[in-house]
């Protein structure tokens, strides 16, 4: 459960998030909106890359914003990036182990936990494979494996299916849908692919110009007139 209250982020004269308030209860939740709506900025606030001007974020009762950014991963914040950031020099195993060894879990369970996370994503490459030998879809799965290892509480997925062919997207959707029950974490999915969002998310929130314009059950939100207007523009 994450409660966001009055979150405002400004870059110079641009207000990227404008007193945004929203609550996600559990499961996989969608966060959509036109380009520049503030979705990635919201993730960057949660990761600690961006310091908001005002507002609070409470995640599972903890004040997230008062935590140093590198400690948030230890606490349980995980994320993937819009442009995928699997570490090319390392193997698949090392990519995931890197997150595990900075989590709260000890080294004894590392080997098993890392292999579990890789298996969970259904990645069809051996753990020793160097990431630079992988294709785009496989790298996305490596990022997802990094996001689910080591008891995550909040999994942030930033356009994980961007640029993937349909079959890989549907596999990814299946993996994303299973994240909450597999890890017990709250997953937030940002994507422009509405079929992916409807396939994965029970609830969805919509941002436009840094403001929350709708939230609720995904199907209802996608039919909402304000949402359609935001995406298509006002006639």
């Amino acid at each position, binding site marked *: 459960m994450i409660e966001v209250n009055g979150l405002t982020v400004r870059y110079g004269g641009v207000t990227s998030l404008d007193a945004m308030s929203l609550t996600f209860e559990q499961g996989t939740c969608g966060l959509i909106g036109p380009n520049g709506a503030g979705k990635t900025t919201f993730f*960057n606030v949660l990761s600690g890359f961006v310091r908001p001007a005002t507002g609070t974020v409470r995640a599972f009762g903890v004040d997230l914003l008062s935590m140093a950014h590198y400690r948030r*991963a230890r606490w349980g914040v*995980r994320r993937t990036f819009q442009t995928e950031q699997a570490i090319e020099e390392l193997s698949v195993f090392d990519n995931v182990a*890197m997150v595990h060894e900075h989590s709260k879990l000890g080294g004894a369970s590392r080997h098993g936990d890392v292999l579990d996370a890789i298996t969970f994503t259904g990645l*069809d*490459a*051996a753990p020793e494979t160097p990431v*630079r*030998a992988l294709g785009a879809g496989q790298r996305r799965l490596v990022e997802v494996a990094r996001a689910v290892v080591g008891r995550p509480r909040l999994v942030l997925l930033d356009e994980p299916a961007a640029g993937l062919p349909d079959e*890989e997207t549907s596999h990814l959707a299946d993996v994303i849908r299973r994240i909450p029950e597999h890890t017990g974490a709250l997953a937030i999915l940002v994507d422009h692919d509405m079929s992916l969002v409807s396939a994965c998310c029970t609830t969805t929130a919509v941002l436009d110009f840094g403001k929350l314009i709708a939230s609720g059950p995904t199907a209802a939100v996608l039919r909402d007139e304000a949402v359609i207007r935001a995406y298509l523009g006002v006639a």
Partner: protein
Amino acid sequence: MSEPKGRGVAWTPSSPPNPPRGRGTSDEGRQRLKAPRRRASGKIAVTTVLLLFAFFALPELLSLYYIDTMTQVAVYSMVTLALGLLVGRVGLFSLGQAAVLAIGAWAAARLLFATTQPYPLVLLEAGLITMMGGLLIGLPALRLRGLYLALITLMLAGSITVVLATVNFPNGGHGFLGYNGSLLHIPPIRRPSIAASDPAYYRYSMVVAILMFALVLAHIKTRPGRAWAAIRQSEPAALAAGINIWFYKLWAFALASFITGVAGGVLAGAIHYLYSINFPTQDSITLLAVTLMGGVFSLWGAVIAGFLSQFLPALLNNWGVSADWLIILFGLGVLQVLTTAPAGLADQVPRDLARLRRLLGRRLRPRSARGDDAE
């Protein structure tokens, strides 16, 4: 705001060349995996043979002049190993390594004159003292990156050279500095009793160098190595993985300073008498050049760099050619590396040799066997 970009340094050698991407099937994946394993065991075998040869055969084959040169190669391989660690793993450009080496040599010389401690202990202490110095330099320097970090370390190297020219290296005198300008007979810096002769000291420095390479390997293959790899590719990704970037960069600085300090200690015993002219500021620049030429992504790069910086000048001296010509060669070498082989000679030479072998194989195969290839 869009994605936080990997905020790299102002100039970073790009990563080793990537094989073409593509979503491989699991069969391809398995085949890809067998090859690296075979290559790994082959690498270990080659390394072992080379080390045994260098340790046992070389001192028998070489003249004293070249044995001393090889000791220098061992020393400077450690220095370029440390510099390669900073540049290649963490993307920190230091132009002050010659000064760090001088600090290690100074500390070791002082301890060797003042105490009767066993040599390995002195090396360890010299390394730790240099590490402290490196951390003092590193703390403010970590706020900087790229060109500015390089500039600051270069200025620092310059100032350390000036300080050393004033206080001098210990020569058996008393007091904290251990220097006495009016000494008539200057005692040489001692060597370990088991390695008093030049060939024995060469073997000794080889062992120290191997230990330092093993230390770096142990770092690269484990937690700090993974953290460094992440930091170098993308600081946001490293942060998101819970890596304390500041701490791991400082760790790299500390490790590099320690290794360079130990190298300084070995150098002190190797040349017996230390003077500040042994450590000109310009050396720091040459060191970075040869480190880049050797290759910063492979430990072999450091060995190649050690040869480039010490063996080539000795060879030219022996032939009666001025070693100053090397500056031009190194300049061209760096240009060549930056444009054609970002992973340095350690990557390029095996790649080109394999290409040559394929080419020769194709040429030498009898015409009949090539029937299919013919149009």
